[in-house]
């Protein structure tokens, strides 16, 4: 197995020229939410499998995912998705070479945070106050 290269920042963590800035945290949270979303995808698939085996198996599952803790977990997964989506768009812009300037990067970081807060608040409102399923 050939050694695959590490991401560039890994070579300088702790010792390198990188000073903390909130854009670092934004970037590491993109990874954290990405890993968390694998668990969310697993949950979605388990839900579908439960439904695919008929009414009885679905109803046996149901009390677990309509409970309040389940709603909280689903909401957290949704916020993780909204976050990963927004920062993902920002990273795609980086990939085509746009937005590397420090002022632009900070401005898009603020934009991402604002978008995540607004969209998350809207979704939480729909889930908890309007009582949308699941």
């Amino acid at each position, binding site marked *: *197995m*050939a*050694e*695959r*290269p*590490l*991401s560039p920042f*890994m070579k300088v963590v702790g010792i390198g020229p990188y000073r903390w800035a909130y854009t670092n945290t934004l970037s590491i949270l993109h*990874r954290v939410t*990405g*890993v968390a*979303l*694998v668990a969310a*995808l*697993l949950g*979605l*698939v388990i839900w*579908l*499998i439960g*439904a*695919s*085996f008929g*009414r009885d198996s*679905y*109803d046996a599952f*149901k009390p677990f*995912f*309509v409970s309040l803790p389940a709603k909280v977990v689903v909401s957290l997964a*949704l916020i993780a*998705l909204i976050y990963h*989506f927004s920062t*993902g*768009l920002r990273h*795609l812009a980086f*990939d085509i070479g746009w937005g590397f300037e420090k002022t632009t990067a900070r401005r898009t970081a603020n934009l991402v945070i604002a978008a995540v807060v607004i969209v998350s608040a809207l*979704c939480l409102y*729909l*889930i908890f106050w309007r009582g*949308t*399923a*699941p």
Partner: protein
Amino acid sequence: MSLRAPLAKALNHGSAHAGVHHWVVQRFSALALAPLSIWLVYQLLSLPDSDYHTVVGWVGNSWNPVLLSLLIVLAAWHAWLGLSIVIEDYVHTYLSKTLLLLLSAFLNGLIAASGVYAVLRIAIRSLR
């Protein structure tokens, strides 16, 4: 002309030539997942309740099985690529790194296959 040292060539060091493909697929799957995830969240939030008939009716409805299968496969693929990068960056022991990479590949393969299977089961049953 190659600039690689003869020893490096003999030891088979150097690029595996798989990095660009990895990078490109991760970005393309992200581009495809962007509209698909908006669609999924919108659809789920629009369900009137989470009863069996509501959910099964939604999964089997018109093109929903296609979009759902596509979303699950692409998400599992994207997750496999992303998790690989995270594991390679943070786990440096050869054995645990290899085992975790295998585990992530198997888990995401299982998610993709069983997700598509579940969607097909529901969709085909709703045809009758």
